[in-house]
């Protein structure tokens, strides 16, 4: 197991290099970012040239990448076009997004698995169909609509919760955005749980457990749920990273200065320092989440072994 973990950690190095290079190339494929700094005006050629020099934009791509990586290893992520260091952006954005993700993830886990279990055990009945309808609503109405509707109703019309988050990233302000962010993933988790529960409810160990006269609750939680969780855990692992990097819509609606928002700004302004910096950290989180999921497999199903 220890060797397995070490091997997985070592594999992060090529992924890290591969991703940063790919993102670097992609940002550059978008074209020259300097003209946009001058707004609707044609850039002064002398000034534009000097700005390109500052960001190494005149070097061949591989040299730019090497220069960037060289600085990265000294923990220098470069600056944005507005002169702010990317390190300071990372330091404000990641804690904010971590909090939002924690709220959304908690909602997703508790309600997703809960609803899935309910609908799997009550297959074909009202509860099951209600969960199905909820799933359909969540999938077919895009996040930006649910976000605006909830913000308008809860935050503005009823005044029940703060309408936006802003610079006060507190739990009560994050619940509404957390629900919006979790909604689509919640649909996945509920459907996945339902399906595996339906499959496993007929499994032999459940029958054995019931036959032995174990209390229903114990059968459901210790036997049924535990064995049904592998696909759900896999999904949750992939979703953790997606929640952090893909919260753009939610972050914009609720004025959260987080990873998704800065990443969007970096992409639209074509600043490779910002984009590569944020994606680098995100990829590390994806990799860690994957490793965790693979280790959880062994916990959930002891027959799975890692050498």
């Amino acid at each position, binding site marked *: 197991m220890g060797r397995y973990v070490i091997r997985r950690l070592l594999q992060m190095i090529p992924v890290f290099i591969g991703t940063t290079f790919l993102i670097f190339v992609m940002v550059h494929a978008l074209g020259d970012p300097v003209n946009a700094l001058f707004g609707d005006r044609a850039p002064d050629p002398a000034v534009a040239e000097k700005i390109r020099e500052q960001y190494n934009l005149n070097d061949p791509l591989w040299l730019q990448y090497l220069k960037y990586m060289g600085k990265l290893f000294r923990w220098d992520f470069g600056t944005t076009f507005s002169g702010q260091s990317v390190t300071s952006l990372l330091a404000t954005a990641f804690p904010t997004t971590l909090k939002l993700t924690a709220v959304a993830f908690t909602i997703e886990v508790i309600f997703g698995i809960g609803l899935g279990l309910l609908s799997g055990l009550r297959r074909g009945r009202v509860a099951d169909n209600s969960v199905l309808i909820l799933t359909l609503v969540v999938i077919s109405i895009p996040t930006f609509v649910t976000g605006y509707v909830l913000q308008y109703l809860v935050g503005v019309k009823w005044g029940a919760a703060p309408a936006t988050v802003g610079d006060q990233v507190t739990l009560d302000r994050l619940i509404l955005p957390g629900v919006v962010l979790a909604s689509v993933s919640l649909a996945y988790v509920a459907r996945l749980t339902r399906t595996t529960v339906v499959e496993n409810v007929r499994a032999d160990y459940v029958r054995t457990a019931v036959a032995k006269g174990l209390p229903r609750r114990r059968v459901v939680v210790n036997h049924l749920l535990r064995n049904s969780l592998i696909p759900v855990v896999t999904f949750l692992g992939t979703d953790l990273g997606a929640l952090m990097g893909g919260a753009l819509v939610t972050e914009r609606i609720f004025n959260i200065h987080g990873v998704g928002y800065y990443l969007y700004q970096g992409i639209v302004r074509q600043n490779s320092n910002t984009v590569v910096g944020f994606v680098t950290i995100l990829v590390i989180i994806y990799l860690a989440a994957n490793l965790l999921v693979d280790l959880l497999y062994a*916990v959930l199903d002891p027959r799975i072994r890692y050498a």
Partner: protein
Amino acid sequence: MSAVARVRWAVIVATSVALVATGCSSTSSGGGGGGGNANGIVTAWWGDPANPLEPANTNEVNGGAVLDMIYTGLVAYDPKTSKAGNAMAESITSSDQQNWTVKIKPGWKFSDGTPVTAASFVDAWNYGALSTNKQVGSSFFQYIQGYKDVAPTSGSPAAQTMSGLKVVDDTSFTVALSQKFSTWPQTLGYAAYYPLPKSFFTDHAAFLDKPVGNGPYTIAAWTKSQKMQLRPNPDYSGSNKPKNAGIDLKVYTDTNAAYADLQAGNLDVDNGLPNSALKTIQSDLSGRFLNQPAGIIQTISFPLYQSDWSTGNAKLVRQGISMAIDRATITKVVFNNTRTPATDFTSPVLGDSGGYKEGLCGDTCKLNAAKAKQLIQQGGGIPGGQLTISYNADGPHKEWVDAVCNSINNAMGDTKACVGRPVGTFADFRNQVHGKQMTGGFRTGWQMDYPLIQNFLQPVYVTGASSNDSGYSNKAFDAKVSQANGEADAAKAVADYQDAEKMLATDLPAIPLWYQNGTVGWSSRASSVMLNPFSVPVYTEITVK
């Protein structure tokens, strides 16, 4: 520990981590956020500035709004009439419209206590023009003699300062321009011409963290990309002293988020209103909403550098397209009357004496579907068979471009005569415009730098000018503008500019669409909210309960 217990333990840990991560900060006080604090401080919408906050390095409205609060230039524009009047300048005089003497008022101070002298201006302008300082507004100094030495088109600058700028004494300096420019003093209210304190040059990094100026406000605190707190400058010598206890600018990720905060009473002043809010805003805010003309005109430009758009026939086609656009309905339905159909190439904020002339464009800018179709057919149809209108998809343009296209399609009786062509980012869009890669129409807009008719014509339509995106080149037009620039009499100058403008109305390098208004909404605790002609709130006048 058994496997089951381990899982259970892991879940408990994960949940408590989540709660700690979010719960910990919930005890931190939430005093400063939003409105509701009764200390006379106004909270206002803000967007993150695109460039570092330096006067000559700011070319967009968010950075500009702050610079206007913390600096006072030689001249300032009246928020109501847009007339330029002396602010820090005692006088700006010239006998030949080319060599100017500037005298400044004595006794003014920067908020760090150092005096504002003639050198504060000259040093700042030289800094702004020098190409190695990478200031995006450097071209504002192009009319000053010696500009080409400090910002050559290629290579290193031959000089560090412009030969046209000379300090005479502490309160006066002279400026030699490279050409006659009678209205030059009236351009000096623009942010690039603000003075800079000594500390700007001695400790640049500290200045960028907290810029120092001579304006009505000083920056008390600035959390970059989150919020900025401005407080009245106790040493301010100007007449427009703040009537509030300060302004807190909050950076919003999205205009809709700001509008939600405004409705919920967490924001006092919002001049970044989203289009979608305009339909309901009167009832949402019980009339606390202002919609007034601003110095912005929207146009559709054409690539006159493409052979099929530069012909005489293509001119007829452009006239036809212009007559096919139902400006009245689009401004009413899509923009809820926050735009006014354009009938010339300037803006109503200039006023009649300033050069605005209603109806200068004539029938060409009026809807006439039958004539439109006839003109387009007479011109041999739309080059390429289909008109594309390019726009940057990261801005709020899709809806009106689609509406313009539908308007053209209806006139032509062909649902595919015109389509919108989104370009992913503004940067990519500008690269295509700048690189002369357009093959059809594309959106262009002009926000004035200073309220002069010259600013609507010279930078946009003179041959090779910095914002001449269509590649328009007409010697007669260039000569007329140049003649107007040298005209000492204001009324005569305006008449010359308008003669030049009439050439645009026939050549139609760009189709005028509509004049853009400035809009602002405010909370029930704010009053005396108004907008200047640049669609920025006059922050000093706002009061809160």
